[in-house]
């Protein structure tokens, strides 16, 4: 799946917008030895001084204009979005926003969106599609807010609708997991043509604490749960959940926001440029296949997994300008 989407290891045959050139890591073996444990990644991803969405947006994009509101109930501060320029190209951005202080975290609800946050996202996705603007999403949430008001206003419905719309949104989508990719609340911003993650980001079906509480009956087993769930960058590469990792500065993204943003910008520019050259129908088919392929099953009667993606897509993506050849 990595080759198909990011096209890195076949750099020489490609179209010049390559993962390797963009400083991306597409194979866990490319990472330094002595890499952090899953639990260390969890801690790094949650570090309050880690650059959050607006800090990244301010450094990566020009002329960001935030757009507010879901047009129905409330403007949710845990999700920010708007229009900005990425190396001169207008794009729509939708991002989860944590706080850099306790005060801001209270205002941002610790990056846990309410349903109206996802409905704002949905509105902005539609805006992107309507005006042919590429969509960049930045994922960073412990999860969707689980409180009773969120249940009353349809947290599950909002997430499901957001996922559904992304699967068929007729514009290129690049997802970057900045910090925590917390379950369905993250996935509601996470369906893209390319899914990237910072090196120390995590992406999991449930928080390690939640998993430990249920399976080990003790939240203190979170470290074990984190390791078992394979939620850290290298694991996500292995499973194909992310297509490539963006390298962080040596001490972690929190040690150098500028360098982190620069690496993200390089990756985004290359990916958006590449995706914008792919015919939309192909892009939508590929996006479908990207998520269609997840799953590890055995079928004794047929003896095989689902059919692999068609080869013409591979050619198409590796070199969209040359069409069917190569």
């Amino acid at each position: 799946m990595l080759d198909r989407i990011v096209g890195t290891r076949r750099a020489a045959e490609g179209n010049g917008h390559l993962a390797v050139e963009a400083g991306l890591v597409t194979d866990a073996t490319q990472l330094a030895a002595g890499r952090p444990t899953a639990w260390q990644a969890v801690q790094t991803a949650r570090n309050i001084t880690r650059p959050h969405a607006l800090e990244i947006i301010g450094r990566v994009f020009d002329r960001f204009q935030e757009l507010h509101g879901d047009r129905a109930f409330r403007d949710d501060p845990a999700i920010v979005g708007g229009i900005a320029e990425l190396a001169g190209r207008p794009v729509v951005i939708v991002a989860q926003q944590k706080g850099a202080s306790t005060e801001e975290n209270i205002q941002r609800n610790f990056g846990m969106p309410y349903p109206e946050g996802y409905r704002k996202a949905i509105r902005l996705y539609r805006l992107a599609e309507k005006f042919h603007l590429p969509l960049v999403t930045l994922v960073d949430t412990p999860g969707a807010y689980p409180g009773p008001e969120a249940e009353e206003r349809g947290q599950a419905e909002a997430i499901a609708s957001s996922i559904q719309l992304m699967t068929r949104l007729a514009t290129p989508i690049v997802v970057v997991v900045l910090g925590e990719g917390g379950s369905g609340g993250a996935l509601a911003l996470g369906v893209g043509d390319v899914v990237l993650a910072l090196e120390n980001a995590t992406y999991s079906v449930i928080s390690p604490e939640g998993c430990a509480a249920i399976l080990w009956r003790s939240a203190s087993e979170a470290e074990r749960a984190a390791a078992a769930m394979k939620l850290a960058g290298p694991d996500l590469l292995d499973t194909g959940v992310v297509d490539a990792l963006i390298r962080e500065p040596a001490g972690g993204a929190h040690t150098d926001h500028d360098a982190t943003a620069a690496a993200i910008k390089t990756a985004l520019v290359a990916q958006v440029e590449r995706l914008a050259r792919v015919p939309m129908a192909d892009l939508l088919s590929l996006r479908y296949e990207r998520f269609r392929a997840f799953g590890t099953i055995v079928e004794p009667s047929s003896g095989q997994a689902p059919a692999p993606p068609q080869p013409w897509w591979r050619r198409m993506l590796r070199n969209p300008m040359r069409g069917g050849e190569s």
Partner: protein
Amino acid sequence: MRLRNPFGRKPKEFPSHLWTQCPMCGEMLFNKQLERNNRVCQKCGHHFKLDAAGRIELLADPRSFSETEADMVSSDPLGFVDSKPYPERIAAAQAKSGHKDAVLTGDATISGIPIVLAVMDFEFMGGSMGSVVGEKLTRAAERAFAERKPLVIVSASGGARMQEGTIALMQLAKTVAALARLDEARIPFISVLTDPTTGGVLASFASLGDIVLAEPGALIGFSGARVTSETIGEKLPKGFQRAEFLLEHGFVDQVVPRPQLKERIAFFLNSFRIAGQDLRWSL
């Protein structure tokens, strides 16, 4: 993501070969009669959980159900071990339920209408969705798309299956993507929410029906009530996350008692089918 009983009210089911006590009204119910009544208490109308076989018998026309992907099983992508290895948990669930995983899919007719039918079984690891549930539901939606047949999914699930980690989470996107194609093709999808439907299943396909029906009293919610309760540090309101609560808050079209469920689904499918036959309208 696994279901918790929200009010600390432990169902007082005392299974014996002959009798079951109703957890709502306390009535002792003769098992055979309870089964004949589709596991609805004759006295108070309480809906007991219904397994996949019972659900198919309830909804599909007699002998019309033809199972597909019956032998699909999960592998163990993460090598997951908690108090016991994931493969052992699966084996135990298979032995207990008689099924390979938490959903049965197949072709059937409902009141003569050909459909693709999927029914989840809470008895299999809490109806959790991993690769097999995701793959079978996706294939069901793809078959409905290819054959232009309506899709009916009956959900009963505690959410995504933790033992498959982020792969399980990706099943949300995978199933929903297949449904999005159905939606664009204007092929009806009816979602039936039964006790319980929570977590990742509700946050994906189960919420996206053209018609969403729920059984009376079914627990339906995004977060386990335990999580929600801890979040606000207080007791939750009465009826929170029950089918009737979702109806009031606008997420469910109807709460339908089990005896009327089949005819209700057939009515909606017929309405959509008859109208769709007028080709003039598809400009």
